[in-house]
């Protein structure tokens, strides 16, 4: 590997810059690109809260920040990558997961997080979501579900509840929404959790757990979009939506995900919790074991040779390449 990536400690908490000792600051700030603030999100939006939890989770599990990459798609949550002071990739609409798949497989030492919204991950990107879960690529997917397309002005999404008014369902939504946790579970994710932006401690812990899992982990964050969903559907401002999360969420750790349907702005409980936590060989583990079995000594695992290490190829020198 190149000099920049060797010899890094990877298990301790990230040390704060010395300057912070004199004047304590918000511990999340150093995870942010402060030269890009203020951000674009509306007052009452839940995305910033999720970022706060994410930063604290990263802090808690002590991943070296040089080895952590975040990939976003398009939309309000798609802007997260741009605000995190990490190697960060703002990709195309719906394609954060396949980009992240290539990134992770081509450098297995990276921890790769996909951070995007419900429209991006479950509508246009839905096929990639299920296939990455099926392959069990070692990715952590954080899906901020605000039940609508915010960036484009509040259109109906595959997560929008029945009857809800959106700009493209002016007479109410007639399609059943996805239960994203059930979907991720069914497709093979090794870790599946759901919290709301009210549950900041629990969310932080679940993201920490997701980051520590090997394989495809999925964390759904229910978040208010007061500007484009709440206002139109008479559910109030950001605070009112937080209150709704507080009052109706019911913690159901370990419950079967088929039992976790809910109607976010209707009636009845909103099941939240750590639903799935299991182990299954991740894609590269299985690939390496499988190829070693099939090819024996002939197998050269990926990463033995990379573009900047070709000089080492001389060790294979022989009369014919």
């Amino acid at each position, binding site marked *: 590997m190149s000099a920049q990536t060797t010899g890094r400690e990877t298990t301790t908490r990230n040390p704060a810059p010395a300057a912070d000792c004199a004047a304590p600051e918000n511990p999340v700030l150093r995870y942010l690109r402060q030269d890009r603030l203020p951000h674009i999100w509306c007052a009452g939006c839940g995305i910033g809260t999720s970022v706060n939890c994410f930063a604290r989770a990263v802090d808690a599990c002590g991943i070296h920040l040089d080895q952590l990459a975040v990939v976003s798609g398009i939309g309000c949550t798609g802007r997260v990558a741009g605000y995190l002071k990490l190697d960060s990739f703002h990709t195309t609409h719906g394609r954060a997961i396949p980009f992240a798949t290539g990134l992770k497989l081509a450098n297995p030492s990276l921890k790769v997080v996909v951070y995007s919204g419900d429209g991006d991950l479950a509508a246009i990107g839905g096929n990639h979501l299920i296939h990455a879960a099926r392959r069990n690529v070692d990715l952590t997917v954080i899906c901020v579900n605000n039940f609508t397309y915010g960036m484009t002005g509040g259109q109906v999404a595959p997560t929008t509840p029945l009857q809800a008014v959106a700009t493209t369902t002016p007479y109410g939504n007639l399609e059943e929404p996805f239960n994203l946790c059930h979907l991720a579970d069914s497709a093979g994710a090794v870790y599946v959790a759901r919290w709301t932006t009210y549950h900041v401690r629990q969310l932080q812990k679940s993201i920490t757990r997701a980051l520590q899992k090997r394989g495809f982990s999925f964390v759904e964050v229910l978040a208010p979009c007061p500007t484009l969903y709440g206002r139109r559907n008479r559910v109030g401002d950001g605070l009112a939506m937080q209150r709704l999360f507080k009052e109706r969420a019911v913690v159901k750790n370990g419950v079967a995900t088929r039992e976790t349907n809910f109607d976010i702005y209707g009636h009845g409980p909103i099941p939240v919790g750590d639903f799935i936590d299991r182990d299954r060989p991740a894609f590269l583990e299985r690939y390496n074991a499988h190829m070693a079995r099939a090819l024996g000594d002939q197998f050269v695992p990926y990463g033995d040779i990379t573009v900047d290490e*070709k000089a080492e190829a001389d060790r294979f020198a022989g009369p014919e390449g």
Partner: protein
Amino acid sequence: MQADRLGVLTGVHFIDGDHACAEGALAAGCRFAAGYPITPSTEVVERLASRFPLVGGLFVQMEDEIASSIAIQGAVWAGAKAITVSSGPGISLMAEHIGYAAMTETPCVFVNVQRGGPSTGLPTLPGQADVMQARWGSHGDYGIIALSPNSPQEAFDLTVTAFNLSERFRCPVVMLLDECIGHMLEKVVIPPAEEIEVVPRRLTTRPPGEYLPFQPGPDGVPEMVKAGMGHRFHMTGLTHDERGYPVMTAAAQDALVRRLVDKVARASREIALTEARDLDDAQVAVVSYGITSRVVVRAAELARAKGIKVGTLRLKTIWPFPEHRVEELLQTGVRGLVMPELNLGQLVLELERVARGRARVVRVPHAGGTVHDAETIVRAIEEAAK
């Protein structure tokens, strides 16, 4: 820099253009491929799937072409050289990500083994009707390079070149094969690794804080970076500044998009690869590419036998269009230009543009599904010679 010996299958082979293309990728140092099955291109990834585990590479069959075309870009930003392969319908699905590669200056190679179109068209039969798609297939303005081999040997050679050009200019490069070249079996000589020149990734050596991922060098091309180097960089398909930060202004758009176009355009002479034959005394030149150029050899012989002073110019580089080579023809007395192609008149538009009425341009259109009849091209040469 010399090729990595491990990936170079030095020797004399009898393989088709698709397999030769795969070997070219291996020789160029490509170690990541993502693809989705589609005729007549699938053999390229089939060979990579077989060969990669022996050389430290990784092939993933993705769920569709859209995923394939962005997975390779994730791999590139992790430090790999990467390729994806498809044909008409799949390339249409990849179009957004060809633009993403152009915008984010991600070096990578897209192979299009052309079949008859539009839509599902003729899956098993040749076409050359994707040449304009290769240039303009994604939305917006951008620079791109496209190469067109006319033999399995050249499918190998030009695939190495495609990777080298993509690294040199940090842009996507399209390999335009056609079904005939892809499935044609011929002798392919793969030289020893030390005879294959490979352009390495231009990774920055500047420390974090002193490096801007989209700050161009003197040639308009920025140094590259990869995840995990400590730069904590950002990249986006949005219009961006040299830091990679989104900037939504007309000024930022102008600076960025002009550079994306100019870095390729200003090097067009360096990129233009052509092959001339019998042009010294030619009054008529047949300009062609891919499988069609092999029919042109016969047509030119027949026309010469009839006393017509005809020569041929074969384009290995389609984009940027080698217009200075056409200009040279016009300067040396060529008064008739003939372009047969397996489409109803695409690249000939470039020929007409460059000729600007100074030579008679005769089109030899063909809807695809087979190759031209040499006699048809001879008649066009005769018309151009009038």
